[in-house]
């Protein structure tokens, strides 16, 4: 891998994801990051829910591109993305979602996507449209830096964040190269598995975060399995950010945008490092 590129370290100037996490840090708390798949059940709802998340305490919003073969996703997210696709979601609509959220809030918005839809559009074309829509960058669950040369180059040029994943199984050597290739933050997978709420997030998560920090990552956020304010509090004690997905998708499915807003408020009560309720 060629790594003349900037890292998630102090050099990540201009990174919107980094800025959002640093803002939380300056308030003495971990950042809260929320995921929803775009187009579930329709594009306008995703925009409304994204805005609701931003207004109720999310520092960073992740919107996912529904994909036919989501190997890293568990049941709840699969069902939501299947519904989005059968409701006619097309990849180009992701830019309208990003724009719709960034126009109304100042939350950083990242797109989470499997790689083939980006490849199909063309990495550069996709990245340019994402930048134009105000997107912060991409989270790429099935793209490892080893295969990402074009994305490394284009994201560097356009100032977009590159969030790669690290896992409990990641070797020290890969941890170093992945941290170095990332920009914005590094996504630490809490357990060996796919997305889905879990009653407890394994002890492995803390070790992954420590390993990523040791490898030089300034910002490490933990995702997979987090669904409650208590888990957010527990993880926020050692990680720079906490990512919630499945629980928000289930809330949207069962109670619409209001339920997403309510869950976001509840989750954000878990992010205070020191005294609770330190932010609106």
């Amino acid at each position, binding site marked *: 891998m060629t790594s003349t590129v900037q890292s998630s370290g102090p050099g990540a100037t201009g990174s919107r994801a980094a800025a959002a996490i640093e803002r939380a840090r300056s308030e003495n708390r971990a950042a809260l990051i929320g995921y929803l798949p775009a187009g579930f059940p329709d594009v306008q709802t995703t925009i409304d829910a994204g805005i609701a998340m931003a207004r109720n305490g999310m520092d960073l919003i992740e919107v996912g591109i529904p*994909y*036919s*073969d*989501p*190997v*890293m996703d*568990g*049941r709840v997210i*699969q069902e939501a993305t*299947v519904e989005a*696709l059968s409701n006619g979601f*097309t*990849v180009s609509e992701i830019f309208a979602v990003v724009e719709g959220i960034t126009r109304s809030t100042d939350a950083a918005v990242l797109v989470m996507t499997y*790689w*083939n*839809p*980006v*490849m*199909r*559009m*063309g990495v550069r074309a996709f990245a340019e449209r994402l930048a134009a829509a105000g997107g912060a960058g991409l989270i790429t*669950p*099935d*793209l*490892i830096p*080893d*295969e990402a040369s*074009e994305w490394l180059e284009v994201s560097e040029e356009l100032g977009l964040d590159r969030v*790669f*994943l*690290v*896992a*409990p*199984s*990641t*070797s020290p050597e*890969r941890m170093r190269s*992945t941290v170095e290739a990332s920009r914005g933050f590094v996504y630490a*997978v809490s357990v*060996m*598995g*796919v997305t889905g709420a879990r009653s407890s997030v394994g002890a492995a998560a803390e070790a992954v975060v420590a390993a990523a920090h040791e490898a030089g990552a300034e910002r490490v956020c933990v995702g997979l399995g987090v669904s409650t304010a208590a888990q957010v509090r527990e993880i926020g004690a050692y990680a720079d950010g906490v990512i919630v997905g499945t629980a928000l998708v289930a809330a949207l499915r069962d109670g619409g945008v209001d339920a997403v807003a309510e869950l976001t408020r509840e989750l954000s009560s878990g992010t205070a490092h020191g005294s609770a309720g330190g932010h609106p």
Partner: protein
Amino acid sequence: MTDMHQDTGRQGTDAGAADAIDSGTAEAFLSHDESLRHAPGPYFGSYGGRWMPESLIAALDELQDTFEKAKADPEFTAQVTELNQTYAGRPSLLTEAQRFAEHCGGVRVFLKREDLNHTGSHKINNVLGQALLAKRMGKTRVIAETGAGQHGVASATAAALLGLECVVYMGAEDTRRQALNVARMQLLGATVVPVTTGSQTLKDAINDALRDWVANVETTHYLLGTAAGAHPFPSMVRYFHEVIGEETREQILEQTGRLPDAVCACVGGGSNAIGMFHGFLDDRDVALYGFEAGGDGVETGRHAATITLGRPGVLHGARSYLMQDQDGQTMESHSISAGLDYPGVGPEHAFLADIGRAKYEPITDAEAMDAFTVLCRTEGIIPAIETAHALAGAMKIGQRLAAGLEPGEQAADRVIVVNLSGRGDKDVATAAGYFDLLPDESAEQEIAEEGEQL
């Protein structure tokens, strides 16, 4: 759907620089100074690689390392050879098909009899090898995907033989249509998990197997059934099937004193074809033909002709040709043959297609079923419907060879080898339904209507 028809495969208009033919490799190939055999991966030209979640990279590294060491270990290679000989029944025969040859322009036709292997197809070569590797890694559990059930049955067989737990993922619809193969796997001690996610087909079975693997990678080996997926799977699965091509090359030299003019195989993910092709890759005068499932006809959109009409993309860990829509979503494939009904293809085939070393053509359901009958009636061999695609291709190639004869040459001067990848016992109900051989209201008729393959 329409997207597929407008795009004509690798000449697709929006194919970026990375999609272009790897001209360096193509030149090396044309100037004959580079062997194409034993390509180690991870890349075959611009195809292959590891488009996989980071969580699985350590397991792929472990597998690659174990495989490299095993290949160099005489004890391991002896173990594989012994199982091949004393369990699978290798070497398989090479049978001249004189009456079938009359339907192939009169050229000589030889059938590589993988149908005579234990479990009835080439699949056993790969599962024995990988199950041995699983044991070397200290894993106690194997998981596999299956469409019609062939690879699932083969995996369950190898797991039983070597004392491994076996879980097979199979599309829910397929578990109903292939109830007898489900029972077969269960008899062999395997657990069959019906897959109800996504389109509930083979590709979704692979997705669910990958999800299982991520969560259980400590104890579990993913026994992938074809020469596709992330590195090292394509080159590793090929390695275990290379025995097909090696035996064939020796046998054809023995029986005819020469190399064949053409070698034919069917292509689903590409494992039987790559194993056969490998024996002849560096014999530049031997033409290699892969036959993909043309389903109802490539113009209908209902097919599985991935190389013919797909375009490069990533699925299940490898960059290769892929049936995808304009959004990069995987499209559903269609074929009368469950074993060819996959929207992807192994990356080494994508490379061989681009450099022109192998040619790939679609065969429709109707052409395949016609060749199926011809072989049954001329040779007394009922082939798998997958294999019937290779036979239909051989009929076309034979006729082309005969049409291109120079004055003074005989059709019988030309030689074709066909990889008879599997026997058709599993397909009897499908074929009987297709040819309307079953009495109305028989139990079998009901099964055949649902596409059961016995």
